[in-house]
């Protein structure tokens, strides 16, 4: 008993010791590399490509933050995390930023002591079933076997949805998206449930995507966003405003194509402040004046990142929907950069 307590205590002491160090911004600068937590692989959001380079919608956030802080969008160490390991990885200081389609919830923010720096994708939980089952609504799923990634908010929503509709189901707990996909395709479960964006991304990798339908019901709000540790506000600001800079850039019409032209100075003072030709926003963050320019240069603005990784022209094929700019009837709204 004694021995295992010591070993256990050592592990936790080690974890906790990591968490206690403050000044993540300085750590990242000193290290010259950003440690960024991503999924173990979800096409469109975060997955290594054929050359082994990570790419995707969440990866773009990591690269933008690295570009803003270090001026180099490749100065990122990607740390794959599962639904279960992600929070420990962040809390222990193994990663500086978690950009892994993680839902912003009260308890994660307040009880787990994390800080969500914004929302990069407004999502909701959906269901995917094979077309041959002939199911057209999630309420017809009484008695179905459902594949679900454990340790996620979707697991709790699922239980609530079936209970409130007075129907039963059998959960098949699964660790990663890849396993879920394999189980689902083998017919070990009738339904796969996760965030609708994740379903679309998963379906895009199937041999025959058209034989699977995503049911119309969206049973929850899943605001997905990057998060950092609570209590390190400078670092939180850096992450928050890098994300806001990407969103504001789209609203202001700054793209990777016209970036060099715009950064020479424009008529619009807000663009000038964003790109560092006017004001001292970068200095206030403890970064160089061209922090936002670097961030946008690495991947483009929010709209470009969306279109390139998960937009309608990609295999994932997601419409902007709620994720359009507020000026286009969506929810994206970056606070003023002044």
């Amino acid at each position: 008993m004694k021995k295992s307590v010591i070993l256990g205590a050592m592990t936790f002491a080690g974890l906790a010791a990591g968490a206690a160090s403050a000044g993540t911004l300085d750590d990242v600068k000193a290290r010259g590399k950003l440690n960024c937590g991503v999924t173990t692989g979800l096409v469109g959001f975060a997955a290594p490509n054929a050359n082994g380079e990570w790419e995707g919608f969440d990866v773009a956030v990591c690269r933008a933050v690295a570009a803003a802080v270090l001026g180099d969008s490749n100065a990122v160490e990607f740390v794959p995390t599962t639904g279960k390991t992600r929070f420990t990885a962040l809390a222990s200081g193994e990663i500086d930023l978690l950009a892994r389609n993680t839902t912003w919830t009260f308890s994660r923010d307040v009880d787990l002591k994390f800080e969500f720096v914004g929302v990069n994708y407004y999502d909701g939980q959906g269901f995917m079933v094979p077309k041959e089952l002939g199911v057209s609504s999630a309420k017809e799923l009484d008695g179905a076997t459902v594949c679900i990634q454990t340790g996620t908010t979707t697991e709790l929503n699922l239980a609530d949805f079936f209970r409130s509709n007075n129907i039963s189901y059998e959960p098949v707990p699964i660790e990663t998206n890849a396993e879920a996909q394999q189980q689902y395709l083998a017919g070990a479960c009738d339904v796969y449930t996760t965030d609708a964006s994740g379903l679309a991304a998963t379906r895009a990798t199937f041999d025959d995507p058209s034989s699977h339908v995503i049911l119309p019901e969206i049973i929850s709000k899943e605001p997905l966003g990057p998060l950092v540790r609570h209590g390190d506000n400078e670092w939180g600001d850096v992450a928050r405003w890098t994300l806001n800079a990407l969103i504001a850039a789209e609203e202001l019409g700054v793209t990777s194509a016209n970036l060099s032209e715009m950064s020479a100075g424009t008529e619009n003072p807000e663009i000038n402040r964003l790109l560092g030709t006017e004001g001292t926003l970068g200095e206030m963050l403890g970064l160089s004046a061209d922090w936002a320019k670097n961030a946008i240069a690495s991947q483009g603005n929010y709209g470009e990142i969306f279109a390139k990784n998960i937009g309608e022209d990609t295999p994932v094929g997601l419409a902007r929907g709620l994720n359009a700019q507020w000026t286009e009837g969506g929810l994206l709204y970056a606070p003023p950069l002044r």
Partner: protein
Amino acid sequence: MSTLTDPPNEGFRLSMLINDTRYRSLTFQVIAAIVLALCIWYLGNNLIQNLRAAGLNISYTFLGDPAGYDINQRLVEYDSQSSHAKAALVGLLNTLLVAVLACITATVFGVVAGVLRLSNNWLVSKLMAVYVEIFRNIPVLIWIIIIFTIMTAVLPGPREFRGDNATASMVFDSFAFTNRGIYVPMPWFENGIFASTSMNWLLVLAGFAGSWLAAHQINVWANTKQESTGVRPKTTALILAAWLVPFLALMLIMGLTWEYPELKGFNFSGGIKVGGPLIALWFALSIYTGAFIAENVRAGIQAVSKGQTEAASALGLRPRRVMNLVVLPQALRVIIPPLISNFLNITKNSSLAIAVGYADITATLGGITLNQTGRAIECVLLLMLFYLTASLTISMVMNVYNASVKLKER
């Protein structure tokens, strides 16, 4: 003439702590204990300080909160509104279930393979050698995943049983082998004596206990008769009757009927479902640990002097009786102590259940609950406590058994 003098009465000097062998070992032990205590104090203090700095604390109140998630295999009543403590209990029972099942089958596999490996039949002994070497030398996690993957890939899904031109069908119309698990008919009592079925099963268990007692008494009676007259009365029929008659009578009175699994909606319903994860985990743990036990059994048998076999054969005993009456009882003394370790390993290895989605205690308390509540330290401490208790209990029970079979010197 010399006079005997008392040895000089030296007082205790501080240097004796190092130089005097009587005190030296004690000194070092005290120093080691102090260093150990300091280490524990430092680590514990570090933990508490860091927790406080992060604004966290150690509290077990989360155990009473609703868990919010569902579990597919449960031996006790549970739904998503039950508490985290209940979810942990469900996981605990699942762990014990798979551990007990795997201990039994692993022992059977192990004894059979161990005995057969020493067979004079070249093919049989080589086959067993191949089994033992293959399974012993590949990690159990890989076996679990292999078996689970084969099951889900090879067996048909429930939807293949549906329709007029179904590609799969049930065996004897009562057993369904699907990639989600195996469905078998469930016995239940039409006119049970108690209202609840579980109470009726207790009655059946009591019946079995009675039968066992009766059979035991018959054996005792046969033994005394043999000792006094030298002739052992035939007991086979009597013992068979002691087991069967009460059982059949009980089943008849309570009205045993079978509930057959039926394809309903998305899944089979009715009957007993033995889930795919349970089968994969159970089978993998059994064949893997079985290979280790086989080696123990072989070692035990080879430890019995060959003269014993030859002497028994010279008395005219047939090979099977030689094995059962002479060799195995002596081999047990060598087999049991390592067998205890193998049982412990099964229990601990069952925590790999998460790989196939089996809801054992590592998956519920140490997985989902830990993740949903973020109470990592509390959950892991509870897990450690559970595995420690389980292991020590198994160890204790098996040691009692070991004491009962070990060489008794008179």
